């Protein structure tokens, strides 16, 4: 296997979208996937936001292998015994062009890779890229674990996922800090469709995504419950140093989540049909590596482009977009006969002028805020206590008034005004 215009490593959403764009531009492109089929190594926390698909595959919804359209989106705060939920629903998200869908990644990623193949990309599975081919300080291809497995190409696009050994080998990452990563663990639980419909208050192919703050047994992170057609995804996202620092194992954290009084009725009686785990690059802008070197671009999780900003939890869309922009840049560089780092500078410009880096820049303070100790361990409890007292009827005692409740609960939690003010300001600046 030699002599491609571009070799794309990893047939996830970034890689397959990159390969599609390049193939359509008439470039010879090899898409290398280490799994036996695209998507076989991938899991996630539940929702694909498909606007980038509109650009690449108009009316994609006719053949996409989806589970449900998300028409209910909930954000839930959990304490040990309480739950506060903000629940939004709209029928409009159950109609084209759809706002979000649940899908099994082994199905979705496979479908997306087949699209790239149909457009002329060459897809090779069961092939692990084990290193870069270098000519001086220029990347000129990849070494794979196949016999005679060196593949030369004018441009390498590394879409090799969160651990990206190619980006690390190319020196695009500085020191790797475990604190920038979370571990996602998930159970896929089977329940009959009508049971899911009834418990989650949906019909047909409508679905629900519940994102949870708290519910992780005191480990900084978050949790989620979402509906597939005949299964649920139930899992936790755990900050690595926080997970390592205590003695509760990941599966025990999921078990405690499933036993919570707000979650247990949703999952009760379900049978575990698959257990999975994956790392998430969670720190946002702070951890995004250099995006290019001579002859090489990095996209998707390999470039840490996952957005974990509290109320927004996105990744597949960032991967698809960065893959597409990497491909456009590679095509431009090939046209200009300059695949040096300066010839590939258009990549960062493209990301800068679109949501990919704009969202990351705007929300750069949010990932750390969301994973901070106060947001994780104090605010859910204070919020739940305030709401409980708002709705609790203490007759014959008169209602205490909201201001007094907040003041008392703040004191009870040992929270200082200056911390509240600082976090509120960080929140306003962070989300503004």
């Amino acid at each position: 296997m030699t002599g491609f215009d571009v070799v794309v490593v990893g047939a996830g959403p970034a890689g397959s979208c990159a390969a599609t764009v390049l193939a359509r531009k008439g470039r010879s492109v090899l898409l290398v996937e280490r799994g036996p089929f695209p998507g076989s190594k991938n899991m996630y926390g539940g929702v694909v936001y498909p606007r980038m698909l509109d650009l690449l595959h108009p009316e994609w919804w006719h053949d996409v292998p989806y589970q449900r359209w998300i028409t209910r989106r909930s954000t839930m705060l959990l304490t040990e015994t309480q739950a506060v939920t903000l629940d939004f629903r709209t029928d409009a998200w159950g109609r084209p062009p759809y706002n979000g869908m649940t899908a099994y990644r082994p199905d979705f990623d496979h479908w997306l890779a087949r699209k790239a193949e149909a457009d002329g990309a060459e897809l090779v599975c069961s092939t692990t890229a084990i290193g870069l081919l270098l000519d001086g300080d220029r990347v000129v291809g990849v070494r794979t674990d196949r016999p005679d497995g060196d593949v030369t190409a004018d441009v390498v696009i590394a879409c090799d996922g969160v651990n990206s050994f190619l980006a690390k080998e190319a020196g695009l990452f500085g020191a790797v800090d475990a604190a920038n990563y979370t571990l996602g663990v998930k159970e896929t639980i089977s329940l009959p469709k009508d049971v899911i419909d009834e418990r989650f208050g949906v019909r047909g192919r409508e679905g629900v995504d519940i994102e949870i703050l708290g519910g992780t047994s005191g480990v900084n992170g978050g949790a989620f419950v979402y509906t597939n057609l005949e299964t649920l995804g139930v899992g936790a996202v755990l900050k690595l140093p926080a997970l390592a620092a205590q003695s509760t194992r990941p599966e025990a954290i999921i078990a405690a989540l499933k036993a919570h009084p707000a979650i247990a009725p949703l999952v009760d009686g379900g049978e575990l049909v698959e257990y999975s785990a994956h790392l998430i690059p969670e720190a946002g802008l702070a951890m995004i590596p250099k995006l290019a070197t001579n002859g090489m671009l990095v996209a998707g999780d390999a470039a840490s482009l996952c957005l974990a900003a509290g109320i927004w939890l996105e990744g597949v869309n960032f991967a698809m977009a960065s893959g597409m922009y990497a491909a456009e840049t590679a095509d431009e560089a090939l046209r200009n006969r300059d695949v040096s780092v300066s010839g590939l500078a258009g990549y960062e410009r493209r990301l800068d002028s679109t949501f990919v880096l704009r969202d990351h820049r705007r929300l750069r303070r949010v990932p750390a805020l969301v994973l901070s100790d106060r947001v994780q361990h104090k605010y859910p409890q204070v919020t739940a206590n305030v709401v409980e007292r708002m709705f609790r009827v203490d007759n014959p005692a008169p209602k205490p008034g909201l201001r007094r409740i907040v003041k008392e609960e703040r004191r009870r939690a040992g929270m200082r005004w200056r911390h509240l003010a600082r976090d509120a300001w960080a929140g306003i600046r962070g989300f503004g």
Partner: protein
Amino acid sequence: MTGRSEWSEISFEDRMATTQFDVHERPHIVVDGAVCTDCSTRDCIVACPADLFVPTADGGILFNYEQCFECGTCYLVCNREGAISWSYPEGGYGVVFKRT
């Protein structure tokens, strides 16, 4: 509610049996137990989602690569240089997700 739910009864072995692993004969991760003997934190033991790191009576760590999710948690939480040699399995081998 039907009392005890399924999760409280399933053994870890049965849990891992729900996931498909096509095991290659060559271990893709090698742990040098000699480096681990004087490690006091042993973060890998609690953090590995597949529970592949098992402390031994003599203070070492026993590791089995066969049911590895290939997630990368162990080498990130490990603070002992040289304890974990981490790479992906041969192409086509390792974990195969289906409904994730």
